């Protein structure tokens, strides 16, 4: 398309383009079980992209849209996973209840912790989130009898949803589980979109752009950052519960700060100032990790090199660059 056309019919074209993008994204996601095998993928891989994408998009509410750096979101992801897993194993055999329990566990832990650190900023804030995140890692690691310790929490599995005769078999059938994940993902992402369009979401952007000015305008900045942190933890915890359901397993590495780093790089790689960036970043990251770790034992240096290269040469991320080119 030529640039002049964009300039002349900008508003109309923009809406159309946004619509086209949305339709394209959902088509790709909806059709994933059909086209993925053709290119050598498998449905569980797409499920992992959705789960990590949701976690990264949840983090991005804080990172990209409020401008606050958390490097400890794996804690809430892992708490969601353990919350769901422990519920399924010890309490009730119900998938929805497990999801609710896990989301509440991770979200509330984040909300309480956010209260403590909300006045810290920048790297100091990040350091507090890292340290606090590791607390849960050690807890899961050393509380052997309850959490399974280093080997992770086993002996639970997702349960069919609904009451007979209207049950949805998400246990054995990978495709129907994928659509279950996609439905949850869609609901969560819609909610995120609504939050970002609300006055609250706009306030988050204002804080990101200029915190001091937001403060002068009478916005209670600390409270908004706290709420943003809390909301983002709830979304990440929800993703964590889906992770436990996807693998029928929860391990301490889901709580480790490396995973927090992965979430952050997903946001940055996809473009942290864009709504869909983290999903794209998650897709690229998950596929790369899957591919590289099947090729070489030295996958850590490849992942590390990707981190370094993205930071040094590609800081805007895929969608950030795309948007800049098209604007």
């Amino acid at each position: 398309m030529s640039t002049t056309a964009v300039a002349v019919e900008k508003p109309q074209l923009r809406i159309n383009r946004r619509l086209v993008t949305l339709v394209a994204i959902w088509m790709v996601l909806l059709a994933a079980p059909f086209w993925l095998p053709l290119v050598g993928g498998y449905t569980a891989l797409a499920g992992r992209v959705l789960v990590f994408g949701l976690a990264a998009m949840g983090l991005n509410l804080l990172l990209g849209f409020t401008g606050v750096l958390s490097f400890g979101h794996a804690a809430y992801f892992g708490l969601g996973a353990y919350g769901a897993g422990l519920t399924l194993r010890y309490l009730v055999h119900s998938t929805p209840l497990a999801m609710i329990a896990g989301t509440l566990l991770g979200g509330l832990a984040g909300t309480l912790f956010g209260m403590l650190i909300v006045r810290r900023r920048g790297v100091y804030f990040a350091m507090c989130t890292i340290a606090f995140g590791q607390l849960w890692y050690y807890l899961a690691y050393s509380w052997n009898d309850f959490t399974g310790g280093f080997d992770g929490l086993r002996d639970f599995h997702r349960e069919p949803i609904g009451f007979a005769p209207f049950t949805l078999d998400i246990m054995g059938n990978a495709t129907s589980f994928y659509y279950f994940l996609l439905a949850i993902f869609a609901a969560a992402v819609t909610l995120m979109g609504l939050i970002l369009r609300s006055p609250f979401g706009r306030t988050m952007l204002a804080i990101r752009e200029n915190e001091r000015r937001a403060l002068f305008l009478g916005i209670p900045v600390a409270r908004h950052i706290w709420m943003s942190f809390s909301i983002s933890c709830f979304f990440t915890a929800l993703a964590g519960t889906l992770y436990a359901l996807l693998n029928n397993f929860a391990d301490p590495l889901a709580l480790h700060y490396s995973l927090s780093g992965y979430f952050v790089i997903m946001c940055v790689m996809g473009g942290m100032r864009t709504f869909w960036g983290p999903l794209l970043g998650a897709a690229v990251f998950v596929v790369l990790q899957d591919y590289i770790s099947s090729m070489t034992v030295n996958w850590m240096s490849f992942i590390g090199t990707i981190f370094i290269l993205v930071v040094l040469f590609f800081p805007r991320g895929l969608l950030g660059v795309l948007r800049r080119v098209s604007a």
Partner: protein
Amino acid sequence: MWQVVLFNVTNGLIIGAFYVLMALGLSLILNLSNVINFAHGNFLALGGYLAFTLSPALGYWGALLVSPLLTALLGVAVERLMIRRIYNRDPVYSLLLTFGLAFVLQDVARYIWGPNGLPMGLPDALAQPITESLFFITWYRIFMVTVVIVTVVGLFAFLRYSRIGLRIRAGTLDLETVATLGVNVRNLRTFNFAVGCLLAGLSGVLAAGQIGLNPNMGDDLLMPSFIAIIVGGVGSLIGTLCGGLLIGLAAALTTVFYPSASEAVIYAILMAVLLLRPRGLLGEEGMMS
């Protein structure tokens, strides 16, 4: 009983000494450059491994001197090639960069020296216990604590009395003004980063003699060092020193009574500090905010 307590107190002091060396290096870099160096633990491991490789040629004492310097040189290279490019960017980038670097360095160590643990040989004089009743206190432990004390005192004297130290301290408070006064801030930051890596390398050599070498030996020290910095107060090196000793001792004393909670107590201290004194024990309000 007293022996158990004494045993764990010495252990705590030694672990605390490692936390202190590691956290002081991290803190120096954090204060002046606003960068959290995730790769610090890997610099530590490299310091240890370099000593392992060099000690057949240089002897233990030679390796003890040379390998921290080599680690510092590596730090200069890393700072010049990568970290300096992202000083003026959002802190997320410096975190991601050092995080990626940590992965690469760990893999490099694993590739060169193998994934399994290696023992670090010590001179015979150091390997003996001082007396039979105090069998758990070897000369090596005394030596280690002495080296840490000398290093820490030396570092503080350097920062207090030398011109470069003065600039580093001033830069911690207001780097822009320091730059305006004609100080070459780029070189200052490189030097500062190198000092941080030197401390990491030194703790690596010392730790190698105590716990042996493995590619991720620094990881276990990294998180407590972060906590030592937060507990002591960001921006205050004395605070970092106290924080490191405090959590080392607290963890060791908990080991006496309830071993499985020794990690948890570190985090309990962190929580208490964040709740009751958010700026840290000796931190100043407004630092890093």
